[in-house]
């Protein structure tokens, strides 16, 4: 059930198209055609404008004399990739990123599912104030919190601790995750749970065996988006971690030119591609299965 609910834009779009072409078949066909061609042309121009900046990354990564100029590589070479694919430059930052973001995402998803259950299922005087607080917190600029967090971490000697960074990343992603999880959980009818309750299951058992299996698309949407936003997050690890061997790829891509040969723009482009690929793959996977960002676009607004 939740699966079909997750793609409002897609289904509504095709439905509308069907209707319109049916009505256009009568009188307005001649008028509709040029309009649609114009729309397509405009959109293709927008596409070109959006793709153009990406061209530098691709061309520079296979060029031996890259700068920030846009030039065709002559001849194309994979030297840049060969140069960066080693432990210090690529594998360790990627692994650090995976540990930080993977750990924080996992923690965030588990904790938000637990929190969403009572918020979705029980009525209480405290529920509304809590939901309001969660929603309010989703709006706060996390960037602004980083300086006090830094001061606090210095006081309790947690600077440069990956564990503490994971916990902070978790907390910063938690409000929006709780809110989305609760919305997805509201979509699972409580009737199904009652049968399990009658058979003697407690709240956690019915959450694990009845509710979760029915809302897994929602859980995956939240998981993937939490991970993608953390993978790209630069400021949090930049402020909280110091040792080069603990830095994730989001920071090492920033310090790439100063840490390596200053002129290796081609290697920078190659590293950017390697660093970006995991989230692009994740996103594509999500789109194939669940309609991607459009599921999020709909679910954001309760």
């Amino acid at each position, binding site marked *: 059930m939740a699966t079909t609910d997750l793609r409002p834009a897609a289904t509504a779009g095709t439905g509308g198209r069907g209707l319109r072409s049916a009505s256009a078949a009568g009188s307005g066909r001649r008028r509709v055609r040029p309009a649609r061609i114009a729309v397509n042309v405009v959109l293709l121009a927008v596409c070109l404008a959006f793709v153009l900046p990406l061209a530098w990354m691709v061309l520079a990564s296979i060029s031996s004399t890259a700068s920030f100029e846009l030039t065709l590589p002559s001849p194309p070479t994979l030297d840049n990739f060969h140069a960066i694919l080693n432990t210090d430059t690529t594998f360790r930052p990627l692994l650090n990123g995976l540990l930080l973001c993977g750990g924080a995402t996992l923690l965030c998803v588990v904790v938000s599912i637990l929190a969403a259950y009572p918020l979705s299922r029980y009525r209480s005087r405290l529920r509304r104030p809590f939901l309001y607080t969660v929603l309010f917190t989703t709006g706060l600029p996390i960037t*602004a919190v980083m*300086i006090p967090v830094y001061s606090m971490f210095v006081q309790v000697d947690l600077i440069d601790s990956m564990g503490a960074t994971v916990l902070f990343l978790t907390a910063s992603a938690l409000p929006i995750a709780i809110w989305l999880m609760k919305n997805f959980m509201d*979509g699972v009818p409580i009737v199904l749970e009652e049968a399990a309750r009658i058979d003697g299951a407690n709240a956690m058992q019915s959450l694990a065996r009845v509710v979760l299996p029915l809302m897994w698309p929602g859980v995956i949407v939240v998981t993937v988006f939490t991970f993608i936003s953390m993978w790209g997050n630069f400021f949090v690890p930049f402020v909280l971690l110091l040792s080069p061997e603990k830095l994730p790829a989001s920071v090492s*891509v920033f310090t790439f030119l100063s840490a390596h040969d200053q002129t290796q723009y081609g290697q920078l482009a190659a590293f950017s591609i390697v*660093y970006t690929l995991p989230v692009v793959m994740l996103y594509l996977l999500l789109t194939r299965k669940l309609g991607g960002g459009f599921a999020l676009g709909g679910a954001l607004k309760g």
Partner: protein
Amino acid sequence: MKSAAAPAGHAGAPARGSGGHPAGSSLLRGLPLLPSLVLLAVFLAGPIVYCVYDAFTDAQLTGAAQTHFVGLANFTRAFGDPDFLNALWLTMVFVVGSAVVGQNTLGLALAVLTEKATRPVRSLTNGVVIAAWVLPEIVAGYLMYAFFYQQGALNDVLGALGLPRQNWLYTLPILAVCLANVWRGTAFSMMVYSAALGEVPRELVEAAEMDGAGVWHRLWHVTLPVIRRSIMTNLMLITLQTLSVFGLIYAMTRGGPGNKSQTLPVFMYQQAFQNSLIGYGTAIALVLLVVGALFSVVYLKLLKVEED
């Protein structure tokens, strides 16, 4: 669920527990909330309280053995500091220019147009616009740097069209970072509006069409009023996101040249960490938090948590 565009909530709000349980069991039922409460209290509420305290002290990153309470000194200093006022102004330009005008308008336009486009064009547009959004922010910063670079792609295109070339990152850095943020953030608005447009009743649009309303008329008088809640929500969310943009600007210009693209987050970072004035930096952070909080309250007013 009040909003028209809440796919997950659509199945109908579940009938909740009957209520009237003794206090002990309701405490037990709230137990799963505990991990979230602890994490949020320690890592978000804690720093915010600390922020309020620190903003009234002269805390420094290095040296100073003692921290003193200095009252409003950091704030009077800020509002007398031309660099702070410059940052405040640039933040406003950045938020209004790139989010409220740029992302919002382009996102809405793309959502409306993709609905009318042929399928391959629609998929392509969604794909490339969202690709810019999925990219990590520092990578996006580098790409935008290369794009606006003096010998970069944008000037190549302008040159090919016979238009004058510009040294964007020196003459108009704030425009460059605004456009960069439009490039990176438009996907969000596009997705919100696509979801909202999908919920506009077809009969309504077609009735207007029958009455002879033109495209603009239909959009202005039928579609936009129906999705106005989504518009307000989207405006709030992108404003809040844009307020805290740091990495994109820092990777592109580091706030420079001079302070010509120094928005509040960049200014705050440089005061706190490069000038080692943690107290002053925290006061700026507090200003940013308060602005964010105000927008967040408006956002709350727009969204009813629930109709009970």
